[in-house]
């Protein structure tokens, strides 16, 4: 076949027939009297009528129900006026398939242009309609959700222009969707926040990442409210970028309470700082005081003791026995006062010194002290029972001083017992915290005076019986308190005493 022998405007009749029959669309044509001149296979399926029953008959005779909906448009098409494409719902046609169809009518003309009938294309759009309905339903669900949500929601397209604001947003700003759409919403942003806000928003769009921004937005009543806006990119199922969806909450109150909290914190810090400064100052004063006490108070005592001694040695001949006795008493008095001063200074130093807590074993420390006591007084027979391991956390130096005092007391107050016995052990309090105890079978004390035990310079025994300045237990109590612990004592006169303490009762 040569190209010019092939007609370009028409196809052979049998080929045209094939195309008509093979189409997925129903096709039929009518003559000037609306009699059916063509009825393809698809029409047979759609209407449930074979061509033989329809061809040559008036369409409205075969399908009277069509008269109502299709009569006008069909007749207009036959007259030569092109009809619009219309969607027709045929829920329960008497024959054929129920469904939804899109119907297009076109006039047919003769070669001279005069009307020669009409033809129709009937497309089954039931599936498409169902999808549309589902989409509509999901969209309405989204809208109900979006409008009911207690947040401000917005959506923007790829270009950054906003296309949707939920009811919450519109009620907040008191504006309409039309006013807010595009970049209209940005007009409500506080001028001071605008630059920063737009910069962040546009950058996020370019990089297509999540963003969070805080800005002030004008509320319907004209008041600017702080908004936290969280945006997240949207992607289609094929991965292509579709724009953003964002949600906002009013954080004005949150910010106000946060800044109030910040102010309170600052105030508190200032107060702590000034207290610390006061304390440091007071400590420095105490330090200077202690220093001068230690230096100046001892000087006259040295003179009393020194000159008494010089008198005793160089001028002894001029004194009788009783004169020498009094000089000795003067000298002893001075030395005693010196000891009191030293103990008092040690107690003051305990309070000031820095705590260095480590893991310590109190039974190790106790054994060391027991050895020292035995060496210093080898004549004594004392049975010592020291528990195996008593782990604790505390300042090793201070805890040693505490145990020295407690064991020293136990040693001292059992001196009248031939069967002296001192026990060091540990246990658990009712609250499940470890406590440590030092028990002796010595002089003991009357529980009626238990409250006097831990005061400085308090004594329950005459100095002539048991030497000491009365500062030891005050020192122990102070060390225990500095560790956050508690100390208590039980005693029976002439039967013995038990001193117990905990460390760090409050806190971990």
């Amino acid at each position, binding site marked *: 076949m040569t190209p010019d022998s092939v007609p370009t405007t028409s196809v052979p009749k049998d080929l045209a027939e094939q195309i008509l029959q093979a189409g997925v669309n129903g096709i039929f044509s009518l003559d000037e009297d609306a009699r059916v001149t063509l009825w393809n296979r698809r029409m047979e399926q759609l209407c449930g009528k074979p061509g033989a029953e329809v061809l040559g008959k008036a369409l409205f005779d075969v399908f009277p129900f069509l008269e109502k909906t299709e009569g006008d448009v069909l007749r207009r098409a036959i007259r030569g006026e092109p009809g619009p494409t219309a969607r027709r719902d045929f829920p329960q046609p008497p024959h054929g398939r129920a469904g939804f169809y899109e119907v297009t009518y076109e006039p047919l003309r003769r070669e001279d242009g005069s009307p020669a009938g009409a033809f129709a294309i009937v497309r089954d759009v039931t599936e498409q309609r169902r999808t549309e309905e589902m989409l509509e339903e999901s969209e309405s669900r989204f809208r109900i959700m979006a409008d009911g949500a207690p947040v401000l929601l917005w959506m923007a397209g790829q270009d950054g222009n906003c296309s949707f604001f939920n009811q919450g947003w519109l009620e907040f700003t008191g504006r309409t969707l039309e006013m807010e759409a595009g970049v209209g919403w940005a007009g409500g942003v506080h001028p001071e926040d605008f630059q920063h806000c737009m910069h962040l928003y546009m950058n996020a769009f370019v990089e297509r990442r999540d963003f969070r921004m805080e800005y002030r937005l004008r509320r319907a009543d004209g008041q600017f409210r702080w908004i936290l806006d969280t945006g997240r990119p949207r992607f289609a199922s094929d991965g292509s970028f579709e724009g953003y969806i964002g949600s906002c909450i009013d954080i004005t109150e949150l910010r106000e309470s946060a800044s109030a909290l910040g102010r309170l914190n600052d105030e508190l810090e200032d107060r702590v700082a000034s207290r610390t400064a006061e304390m440091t100052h007071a400590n420095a004063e105490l330090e200077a005081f202690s220093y001068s006490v230690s230096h100046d108070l001892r000087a006259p005592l040295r003179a009393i003791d020194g000159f008494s001694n010089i008198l005793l040695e160089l001028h002894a001949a001029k004194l009788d026995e009783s004169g020498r006795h009094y000089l000795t008493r003067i000298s002893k008095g001075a030395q005693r006062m010196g000891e009191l001063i*030293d103990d008092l200074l040690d107690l003051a130093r305990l309070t000031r010194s820095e705590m260095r807590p480590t893991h310590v074993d109190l039974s190790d420390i106790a054994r060391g002290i027991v050895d020292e006591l035995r060496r210093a007084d080898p004549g004594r027979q004392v049975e010592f029972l020291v528990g195996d391991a008593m782990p604790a956390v505390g300042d090793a130096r201070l805890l040693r001083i505490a145990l020295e005092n407690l064991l020293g007391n136990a040693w001292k107050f059992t001196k009248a017992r031939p069967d002296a016995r001192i026990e060091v052990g540990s246990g658990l309090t009712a609250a499940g915290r470890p406590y440590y105890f030092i028990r002796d079978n010595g002089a003991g004390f009357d529980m009626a005076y238990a409250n006097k035990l831990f005061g400085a310079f308090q004594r329950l025994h005459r100095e002539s019986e048991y030497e000491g300045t009365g500062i030891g237990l005050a020192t122990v109590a102070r060390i225990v308190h500095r560790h956050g612990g508690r100390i208590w004592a039980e005693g029976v006169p002439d039967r013995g005493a038990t001193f117990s303490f905990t460390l760090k009762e409050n806190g971990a």
Partner: protein
Amino acid sequence: MTAAEPRVLLVEDNHDDAEMTQMAFRMDRIPAEFTVARDGAEALDYLFSTGPRAGEPLLQPALVLLDLKLPRVDGIEVLRRLRADERTRRIPVVVLSSSNEAADAETTEEIGIERYVRKPLDFGEFRRAARLLADTWLRPEVRRGDA
């Protein structure tokens, strides 16, 4: 140098302490020729021949007994100046202080002293301390070797 007693500079503002220190030496017949400086400035004038002693030759004491808490120039400053000068750097210094603050002992030991003695309350101990110092720092052979 047969009969000459070793020179001891006693820097002490308290009259009682100054007298007792000298008595402690005398009662045990420890030979020493005492010069008492009542404050740090007097001590520096003595050591460096300044002030009232300007123009006089340097007197190198065999031992300096130094109190710390002094009027005008305190003991620590005296010690610093003494240790910083080549002429006085090697003079033995024993601190005799009332204070038992650890910081005082640490500071003076860092600068350089022979010994830190806390003035004992008990006069008997005072005398024992004096004997110990004399045995260590005032023996003739020690002084000669140092000079």
